């Protein structure tokens, strides 16, 4: 029959998954991104499987329900290291805790959905408009006057602030971009007001989930640890940042290479890592990452940069690096690298420079089995501060894709006091 051969053909395609990341859910994302039989999509409408990875706090569960209802039939939900919603916590709910079993479980759910062995998930929220408007008001458009008042629940477009640019004031488009938006840090929810394509206001409604530091950095605060291990974790962190940015730049092949390099950081010998990284850097330049994609974005200077610390500060010319105060590092010939410009391309060049610096340090440290000398000045890969207030100040005036590139270039989330689970 028509349905069955269509389904059999459809099953052979990649499993489409929308990742709704909760707290510490990124490793599910990285594991699935490496699997060629799984396609991670940007919008729930393009997906058949909703993967909730990591715990979702109670105040965000309403948003999760709305995301869940956006998946078109046939759809299913998988819970990875996460507690299912009350309405979905039935005996058949698929809860996975083992990272190695995740890709297999996703593909199995996909097969069962497409071949109709499994029913599509039920809707959680009522399918009625939140503000009924049809037939109401002066002209049947729900509201007063000719403008139609407040239909669809959307506010009228009276500009609350004069347009940031000179000239005619364009209409304001206000929307809330939620905690499960896959193209910025997980958990960040903001109310954005656009006029034209320029961000006029950016108000953080819910901050990004705190990012955990690897276990080794926590240990380094109480006893000396091997510098090589610290630096390997630092390289891994920067490569994960490249993975996100290269996805935004429409270079999925390079993003996957960055991810593969990041996964090999712990185990591969440093000469092989160095060669692979140099090839990666050449490919970045040749494919136009700097020349075509990266905008100037938000420029940090002075006090803002110093407060953020980490890569963002050093890219703005601030020479703060806690490793400089550490004798173990100084014996290896460490000196901080900086860029001058403080804008988005500078931050990415700074990451590239720091990865190269770390690879050199790893090489030297492994020869001599060097360890850290101080326990009070540890340079975390994320820097010191969280960037939410900075986003509220710096993003207005940027065009939308410049704003997202800025968010991708900063370590927005604050540093969690607890280590990676």
């Amino acid at each position, binding site marked *: 029959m028509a349905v069955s051969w269509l389904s059999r053909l459809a099953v052979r395609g990649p499993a489409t998954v929308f990742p709704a990341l909760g707290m510490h859910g990124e490793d599910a994302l990285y594991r699935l991104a490496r699997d060629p039989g799984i396609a991670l999509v940007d919008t729930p409408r393009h997906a058949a499987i909703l993967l909730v990875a990591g715990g979702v706090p109670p105040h965000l569960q309403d948003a999760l329900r709305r995301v869940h209802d956006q998946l078109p039939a046939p759809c299913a939900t998988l819970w990875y290291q996460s507690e299912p919603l009350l309405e979905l916590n039935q005996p058949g709910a698929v809860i996975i805790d083992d990272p190695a079993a995740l890709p297999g479980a996703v593909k199995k759910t996909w097969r069962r959905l497409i071949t109709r062995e499994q029913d599509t998930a039920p809707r959680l929220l009522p399918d009625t408009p939140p503000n009924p408007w049809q037939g109401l008001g*002066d002209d049947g458009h729900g509201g007063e006057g000719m403008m139609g008042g407040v239909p669809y629940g959307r506010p*009228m477009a009276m500009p609350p602030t004069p347009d940031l640019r000179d000239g005619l004031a*364009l209409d304001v488009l206000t929307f809330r971009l939620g905690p499960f938006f896959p193209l910025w840090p997980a958990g960040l929810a903001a109310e954005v007001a656009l006029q034209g394509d320029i961000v006029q206001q950016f108000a953080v409604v819910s901050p990004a989930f705190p990012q955990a530091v690897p276990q080794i950095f926590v240990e380094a605060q109480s006893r000396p640890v091997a510098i090589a291990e610290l630096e390997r974790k630092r390289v891994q962190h920067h490569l994960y940042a490249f993975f996100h940015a290269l996805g935004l730049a429409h270079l999925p092949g390079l993003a996957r290479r960055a991810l593969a390099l990041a996964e090999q950081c712990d185990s591969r010998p440093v000469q092989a890592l160095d060669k692979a990284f140099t090839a990666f850097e050449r490919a970045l330049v040749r494919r136009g990452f700097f020349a075509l994609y990266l905008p100037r974005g938000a420029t940090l200077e002075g006090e803002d940069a110093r407060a953020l610390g980490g890569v963002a500060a050093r890219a703005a010319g601030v020479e703060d690096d806690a490793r400089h105060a550490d004798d173990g590092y100084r014996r290896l010939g460490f000196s901080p690298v900086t860029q001058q410009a403080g804008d988005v391309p500078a931050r990415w060049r700074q990451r590239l420079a720091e990865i190269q610096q770390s690879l050199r340090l790893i090489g030297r440290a492994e020869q001599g089995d060097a360890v850290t000398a101080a326990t009070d000045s540890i340079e975390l890969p994320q820097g010191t501060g969280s960037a939410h207030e900075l986003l509220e100040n710096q993003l207005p005036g940027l065009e939308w894709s410049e704003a997202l590139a800025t968010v991708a270039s900063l370590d927005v989330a604050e540093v969690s006091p607890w280590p990676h689970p």
Partner: protein
Amino acid sequence: MNTSIGVDVAFWLLAVFAVYTGWRVFRTDSMVRASFFLLLSFIAVGAIMLLLSAVYLGVAMFFMMGVEMMVMALFMVMFMMNPAGLNPMMMVHQHKLSIGAGVAGFAILAAMALLAGFPQQALPADLEPVASLGHELMGDSMLIFESAGVVLLATMIGVVVLSSPRGRFGSAQHGSMPPGLEPGGDPAGMPEKSEEAGGHHHHHHGH
């Protein structure tokens, strides 16, 4: 005039479509939809021009109206105090006056179409519309078209320059203002601030 039955059928269908979509421009509830209904009406008219052997003009009609209505729809989205044209709104006002004007206009134009004496001569069999159009443009009407063309080009370049964010006194992001006549004084050449300040009181009637 001997025209085949196919051409007649096509003409009537296109004419009815043009009138219907023209009527829908006023009965729809969104500015963007109104622009696109107008585009459909113009496309039908362009197709009728193709039937009349005005090959270049008909196709140029598609081209021009496509871009014009697109720009108009974009302006609706940008400026209409109606977030992105997504709210439904009442499109018409002054009903009695506009209905009267519409009926009067229709009567006059219909009288012209039905009662005027159109030329009866058939087109020559070896007519090359594009070549004859070209000869006219480069011959008798060269002055008009060349000056119009240069004016259009100057307008386009002027618009692009005006919309550049790099103003004469600084970037538009920071509201470029001319320097004062004395150091630290008010910006020169600006009109006196009127009493009703803060005033974007847009009481638009939706148009």
